[in-house]
């Protein structure tokens, strides 16, 4: 009888310890999850900023100004454009 009791007491202690362990892990994971969520949010915001930056650099107006001033390109007037027929495949 007392052996059974001893065994049960040991099992009980083991369970209690593992519960504490599990709780601890759960909290650690939760903290990690929160950190990653925050990181995701930061990255998301950074992505938005980069998109904004990209569209600012790649804006048609800016490219056109650069093409005209730095590269000396011009838009051909319509009477200087000729359409060629695509050769049938």
């Amino acid at each position, binding site marked *: 009888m007392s052996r059974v009791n001893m065994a049960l007491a040991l099992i009980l202690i083991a369970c209690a310890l593992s519960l504490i362990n599990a709780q601890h892990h*759960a*909290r650690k994971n*939760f*903290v990690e999850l*929160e950190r990653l969520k925050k990181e995701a949010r930061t990255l998301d*915001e950074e992505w*938005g*900023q980069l*998109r*904004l930056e990209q*569209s*600012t650099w790649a*804006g*048609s*107006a800016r490219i*056109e100004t650069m093409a005209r001033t730095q590269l000396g390109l011009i838009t051909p007037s*319509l*009477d*200087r*454009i*000729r*359409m*060629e*027929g*695509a050769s049938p495949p």
Partner: protein
Amino acid sequence: MNYHSKKLLKLHLAPWRMATVGGLIMAGLAVVGGRAFYLQSLHTDYLQGKGNAVANRNMTLPAHRGMVSDRNGEPLAISTPVESLWARTAETRFSEAELTRLADILGMAPDKLKLRLQTRKKGELSVQRPLTPDQAARVAAMGVPGLSLRREYRRYYPAADVAAHVVGFTNVDDLGQEGVERAYQDWLAGKSGERHVLRDRRGNMIRDLEPVKIAQMGGNLALSLDMRIQYLAHRELAAAVTANQAKGGGIVVIDAKTGEILALSNLPVFNPNNRRNYDPQRVRNRAVIDTFEPGSTMKPFTAAAVLERGLFTPQSVINTSDGLIVGNKRIRDEHPHPSLTVTEVIQKSSNIGAVKMAMTLTPEQFCDTLHRAGFGQKPGSGFPGEASGHVRNAKTLKPVEQATMAYGHGISVSLLQLARAYMAFANDGEVVPLSFLRREPQEVIGERVFSPQVARSVRSMMETVTHEGGTAVRAQVPGYRVAGKTGTAHKLIDGQYSADRYIASFVGMAPASDPRFIVAVMIDEPMAGAYFGGSVAGPVFAQVMAGALRSFGLPPDAPLEPARITQPTLPNPIQTHKAEATKNGRPA
């Protein structure tokens, strides 16, 4: 073992001592018990509140406004977090060196910054907003007490003035004020969420105490605009307005197959990123909310009205030699012709011809055709404040009014409405509902306005407008067949037609064999000499249409010059180019 049985251990205590000690212990227990009872059941709310205040936190989860993009995902409006610098002036302690350093980071004069921080004000004061990310990091690194960075969302418009009228803008509270930002406010605005969490001693979140109310991020919105075409339209319109010393102008590009608005621009315009010099006149999206008298761009509808009732055929000859008097008004033509066919009336834009056609109709018939084409009704694009224009009531229509309406006076339309109505000619008689949002092709259900035969014959009449002898030779696009109609209307100023102020317009479509795009151009008060629709608005149309056709990669439908196809060998390309250039100064 029984202690009482051992004589040695037997104690003889006075009973009062037993009673005193026992009583004291009992009293102590009672006090502890009473205290426990008091704390546990009578004082719980207060204590639990205190405890929760330390460990529990209610957090709002911020939701930011959705992004607006063009049809290809190019961003047009983005909310992005920016840091702004705030100071609790009562708490800030600066050394002189720190102040100089801060001023240097912020790019302010040290004296000015000092003055700013000296303003004794309760609470917080905004020092600078917004900061660049770099500035924010450097200020945070200084760690001055009383200074704090605060994160706020700011909306940016990367396309700036190019798409300003369509996209609109938001106010400081992130509420849409104009344009799409206003029309789709509910969709774009996010709904902030909430969570209730337990925190440990270090402030880490440990677990959620209640189910999280997830923040609903604002929805993204893909507009129907195509930024390539939008930019081209905006640039060409601006160039034409400057070259013609005009007061303003507007341009609308519509996909005739789907009803999507690919580009819409007006001048004057504003920059939504910088609203310091806010001027309501510049913010008006004139192409949608303002109306004008269209002039001759109405004539195709007059022609369609008589064709669909079998009163004329495209070849019917109309005598246009004599001046025509309706009521007490004399109708005249800018360039008189003795007689014209119906096609030539459109090609050469004869007022007399148009009036003679319109007068064969009853007022009800004429107005019915105009109503079916959508005049006098909102075009239904969903844009806030859309104008419906004005068509006179058929019951009270006087003959002179019917006559002037035949060539587009005494009727008011918006540019968007005009472009929409031309969809009937482009789409073999069907008008597809307009949309500022990108659409899937299967969503489209059109509404029949004209029969396919009528639409096609009016379209081929309008094709002659850009041919030699038409009013808009300059609206030609190399390689494509173009159909369109010019309009030159005297401006109505204080109820009088001005003699020297005009509205020049051109509405056209291409490729004429199966039109894909409709471009409507309107130039308000060109003052540099030229004022005809064909010469002022026509070239803008041609440039924008050429760019749109090219960027969508539509195959040319005009017959190619035969010499190029039958050439057996390729000669030196440079010489050929020169020869072509001299031979074809202008394409026919």
